[in-house]
């Protein structure tokens, strides 16, 4: 890869901070709504991992692509998704990103390069490689980054896809968010190596492990991987070590984890860290507070929008199964 990149300035940090704050606020509100039964189904919270998604997406252009996971709110918002449309989707409303058809695990905004959260663990990985293949064929210069978890790295799709991507030098990045757990299962109980990035050796590609609570560290690692990919050198693994503050799903008490996991994670909170860094860079506390309020207002508005939006019309339940001949295909 390239030489060590320069460090990020205040402007950069303000942007990163805002995106992380947006994710945190969005999810805090969503969790609140979920616990009050305003939200149905299941949500998987990204809280604590914000620096990973934001650091990674800060290294991408608007014209680049991502695929995401069941824990996708953070990735989508980091890539620029609108909090109101996302919130409305969580509420299952007609105004949501997917008109309420998809819900929390299926947020997509192709215009913004968000090829989708995904409810199937490991399924986004080959989709991302397909996007990278399309870029290679079209020669459009775009890079695709696929987010997935430590747990997902044990799916066959990981191996199959990374092997093809490495061989075909696809312009993509494999971003493993290692929060140490797949639901209740600690990663070292189900794998035999210290890090997951070492698997890069099996495909003869670069692999690094970085502190995923440090938005700048993530940014630099992903930036290098993106440049590598954009230069036609193929994919890399970037593994970010992060902490999942909540249980696996909202409401999971996570009794299977030692207490230290959470205290350790909270002591490294990515947003606290970024705030400290902003102060260090000379940004006034009042400016940061104003940013916090701006984000809080945005999320409040998103909530109001979502809550007041109409439900889908049940009579339209058969729409959108097919692009053409829909009526005939769903009739029989």
């Amino acid at each position, binding site marked *: 890869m390239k030489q060590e990149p320069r460090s990020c300035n205040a402007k950069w940090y303000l942007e990163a901070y805002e995106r992380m704050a947006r994710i945190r606020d969005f999810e805090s509100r969503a969790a609140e709504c979920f616990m009050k039964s305003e939200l149905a189904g299941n949500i998987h919270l990204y809280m604590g991992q914000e620096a990973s998604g934001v650091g990674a997406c800060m290294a991408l252009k608007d014209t680049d692509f991502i695929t995401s996971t069941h824990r996708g709110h953070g990735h989508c918002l980091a890539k620029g998704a609108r909090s109101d449309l996302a919130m409305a989707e969580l509420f299952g409303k007609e105004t949501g990103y997917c008109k309420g*058809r998809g*819900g929390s695990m299926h947020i997509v905004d192709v215009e913004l390069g968000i090829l989708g959260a995904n409810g199937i663990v490991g399924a986004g990985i080959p989709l991302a490689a397909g996007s990278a293949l399309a870029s290679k064929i079209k020669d459009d210069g775009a890079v695709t980054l696929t987010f997935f978890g430590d747990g997902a790295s044990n799916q066959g799709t990981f191996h199959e896809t990374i092997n093809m991507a490495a061989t075909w030098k696809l312009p993509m990045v494999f971003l493993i968010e290692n929060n140490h757990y797949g639901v209740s299962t600690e990663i070292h109980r189900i794998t035999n190596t210290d890090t997951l990035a070492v698997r890069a050796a099996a495909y003869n590609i670069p692999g690094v492990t970085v502190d995923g609570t440090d938005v700048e560290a993530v940014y630099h690692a992903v930036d290098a991987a993106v440049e590598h990919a954009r230069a036609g050198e193929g994919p890399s693994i970037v593994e970010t070590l992060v902490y999942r503050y909540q249980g696996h799903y909202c409401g999971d008490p996570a009794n299977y984890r030692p207490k230290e996991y959470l205290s350790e994670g909270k002591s490294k909170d990515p947003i606290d860290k970024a705030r400290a860094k902003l102060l260090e860079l000379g940004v006034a506390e009042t400016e940061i507070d104003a940013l916090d309020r701006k984000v809080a207002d945005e999320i409040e508005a998103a909530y109001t929008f979502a809550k007041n939006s109409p439900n889908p019309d049940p009579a339209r339940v058969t729409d959108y199964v097919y692009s053409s001949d829909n009526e005939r295909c769903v009739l029989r």
Partner: protein
Amino acid sequence: MKITVSKAIGQALHEEMARDSSVIILGEDMGVMGNVFAITQGFRDEFGENRVIDTPISESGFTGIAVGAAMRGLRPVVEWMYDDFITVCLDPVMNQAAKLRYMTGGQVKVPVVFRAPMGAGRRNAGQHSQCLEALFTHIPGLKVVCPSTAADAKGLLKAAIRDDDPVVFLEHKLLYAKKEDIPDGEYVIPLGQADVKRAGKDVTILTWSRQVYFALEAAEELAKEGIDAEVVDLRTLVPLDWETVKASVCKTHNVIVVEEGVLRGGVGAELSAQITSELFDELDSPVGRVAGLNVVSPFSPVLEDAEFPHPADIVAGVKKTLGR
């Protein structure tokens, strides 16, 4: 004694593990967590981590491992966290477990149970809400069980574990919390016996899993209008208890099949075809079907409720069949 369906399933697993040391459990989060539906809590401490195995998220691998272990004489019980994930592990089920006995000319037995929660209604959206029993019934070599009550779930799961063939055992997520009576002491319900959950004379409702409850609700509604419905809980789809189906059809002369899964290619199609071809002269009306729509499971509650059958749909289906 009243216990939940999930507890009944846990009891079946526990009793069989205690009875037979060749029974092992494999799946995601089955050990330390004791399963995401709390079905195997405490099992790991009691039976050891050799017999209650937390797997990585590698369904194809660990399902294949279970099949290999079954060929070597163990009786693995595999759990897929949702039946929707059969998409990532169909090969060890369909091309291996189901076929090995036949392809080896009877040399091999594959006593493995594949358990999975299934079903809609929890607003889990397109990839976590399907009832896929029809897919499994189309695969020769598999037995397919879909219990409704706690008592049935327990007795059938014990039979499935003791069976020498691969059995797909599908549990409806929205039944887990149901509290019901189960018999005292040890009992087993043989695979392939339907259960008439409500006797009636005007129309036969063939169903299984969660829809049994909806059918019973519908039957009460129908009773108010003077229609006496018989609700047959098939319990096992393969082998099918044709004798019970036939007896009911020959009594009522009108049938509807009610299933939560997708209509097109559903189990109802097969039942309709068989009943029509073999009992044509017994039928006063064509076999009706009430099933999930031919769509993807929607997230939005209002859409999801419109997608799979509810008691009112069954009432309407019966009336349509009876021309009332």
